[in-house]
């Protein structure tokens, strides 16, 4: 097999795994949109905040240290302890649950029944607020995330596939971190699906996603379900933040992954979890293939916009996305 064709396959495999990473972010959006009709633009910043909190807890940073030092003239930065990874993750989860409660209590309780664009703008305001708050709390310099996740290219796969091509072919370069991310994403999606299908609270969540009034009338506490959904989205954001943060460091650009997830949502439909996965895979593969084949002809750096154009073209033929609920309009 020619080296170009093999490189093409490598691009497709990398695209699939990049797609899984995008889908991980898109999952958080879908969860919240399904249950409350809110398009949560703050999902990316939630991922950043979760990753910042995780690193801060693990390193024993003092929250708001810059502000405290500025007001009181002190020089404290660290508590001096190091928290092991699992405990730190549980503590961060608690923080995200507290955040979900606060968002529900102080923001969305007052915005019940507003138009979707107002709710969307409220989440953009939330994103700005959370970004500044995260910077104030943990500092805005770039941090490294050491969870012991394997990094670097996988030598096993490289050696296994080196024989496929000619003498010049080095074997597929598949990042171990990407493989771990794929596994984690699969586990997460499966557990989310099991949760929503087989547990009482998951059924309640699906009921709220269908019809708020009907759910209220059978005795489901909307408030509790919304806090649950935002906490789940926080968990997904934490996983996404950890995966992306382990790849490229915990910094502001992590919040821009939300922009990467938007074409995934457009493609898959805003209300469907399998849609987020399939959409992510399609966008990941399409983006990488386009950059590999046509990118050099138009000057490269097409990854910024090609995902959107691809999603746009799909939408023209299927306005609700591949798996979204069909938009029925009544006069």
């Amino acid at each position, binding site marked *: 097999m020619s080296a170009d064709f093999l490189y093409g396959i490598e691009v497709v495999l990398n695209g699939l795994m990049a797609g899984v990473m995008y889908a991980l972010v898109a999952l958080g959006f879908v969860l919240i949109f399904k249950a409350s009709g809110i398009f949560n633009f703050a999902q990316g910043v939630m991922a950043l905040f979760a990753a910042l909190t995780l690193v801060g807890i693990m390193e024993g940073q003092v929250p708001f240290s810059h502000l405290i030092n500025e007001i009181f003239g002190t020089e404290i930065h660290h508590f001096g302890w190091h928290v092991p990874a699992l405990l730190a993750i549980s503590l961060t989860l608690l923080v995200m649950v507290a955040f979900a409660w606060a968002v529900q209590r102080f923001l969305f309780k007052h915005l019940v029944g507003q138009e979707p664009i107002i709710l969307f703008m409220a989440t953009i305001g939330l994103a700005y*607020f959370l970004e500044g708050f995260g910077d104030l709390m943990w500092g805005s310099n770039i941090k490294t995330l050491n969870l012991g996740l394997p990094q670097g290219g996988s030598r096993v796969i490289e050696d296994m596939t080196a024989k496929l091509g000619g003498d010049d072919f080095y074997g597929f370069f598949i990042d171990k971190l990407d493989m771990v991310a794929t596994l984690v994403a699969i586990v997460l999606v499966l557990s989310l699906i099991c949760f929503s299908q087989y547990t009482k609270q998951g059924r309640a969540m699906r009921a709220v996603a269908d019809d708020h009034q009907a759910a209220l009338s059978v005795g489901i506490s909307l408030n509790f379900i919304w806090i649950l959904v935002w906490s789940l989205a926080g968990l997904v954001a934490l996983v996404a933040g950890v995966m992306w943060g382990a790849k490229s460091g915990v910094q502001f650009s992590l919040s821009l992954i939300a922009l990467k997830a938007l*074409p995934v949502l457009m493609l898959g439909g805003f209300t469907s979890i399998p849609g987020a996965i399939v959409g992510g895979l399609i966008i990941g593969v399409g983006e990488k293939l386009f950059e590999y084949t046509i990118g050099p002809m138009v000057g490269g750096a097409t990854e910024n916009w090609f995902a959107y154009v691809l999603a746009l073209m799909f939408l023209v033929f299927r306005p609700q996305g591949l798996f979204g609920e069909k938009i029925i309009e009544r006069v």
Partner: protein
Amino acid sequence: MFYREAGDFKTSYDADSQTFPIAFDRYRYWVVLAVAFLVIPFVINDYWANALLVPFLIYAIAAIGLNILTGYCGQVSLGTGAFMAVGAYACYKLMTAFPDISILIHIILAGGITALVGAAFGLPSLRIKGFYLAVATLAAQFFLVWLFNKVPWFYNNSASGQISAPERFVFGIPVTGPNTEAWAMYLICLVFVTGSAIIARNMTRGSMGRKWMAIRDMDIAAEIIGVNPLRAKLSAFAVSSFFIGISGALFFAVYLGAVEVGEVFGINKSFLVLFMVIIGGLGSIFGAFAGAAFLVCLPVVLKLIGVDLLGWPPDLVAHFQLVIIGLMIMFFLIKEPHGLAQLWRVAKEKLRLWPFPY
């Protein structure tokens, strides 16, 4: 007791259909125009112009444009930054290609070119609605910014990829370039703002505006009563992009002078103008001005308080700015989802009854 139509009888059709039927409104309008044109140019200085007034005027035009698209016609668009870039680059190419023609004509032509581009990117709106359309306009945003970065023809093959405005004169007075005085910058922007606001207000009052609002409220029903959705939506995109293009051209030529498209016209600009429209009030020309004023003044006030008054380091103040802007947006949306324009309308209603409470 003076803010009512009682006793004020109109004797001609013109007077009956004027924009400000109440005398108080009319006088207020003329006073504001008089102060803006006759008083401020003589007292303005560089700091006020650069920090507050000129960005306010330019963003007001952009906010009027986006308000027409999102507020009157209901099509959410996140491509404002890219359309401003189209206006800026069109103005740049026209200025460098035809150096003898007045910059005023170039700015209007740049608006026209942006209108065509906007109508082209508005075609998906015929099929896609709501949030999906917002994300589709993001395709326009990212694609256009990439295009202006990659294709050297747009920036005249300059080595840095930046575009910079050559010096141009209007009636002998420099309006672009380093020798521009504060009042010249202010006046040229003010002229365009006044023109844009008059055109926009009258368009939205007329049949075009009613068609847009019909599409916004329920586009299937509008189609049934005879509003052509293709014409209405594309014209909304075109008119809105016209104003946004003018604002982009002014932003580049008069205010900044030199622009690097990725950072100046990126997605943050789109969100900024959308905030202005939402906080100012969807579907109101006054709301565009109110929102632009709010979002231009707020960071300046916060910076003044933080850095000058409290002496904190700028990065801490920058973080606080984000926190406070986010809080203010959320607070506003909770308290008054229809924006500052609604507060203004409520105030005017109370003024009608003054001095009685109800």
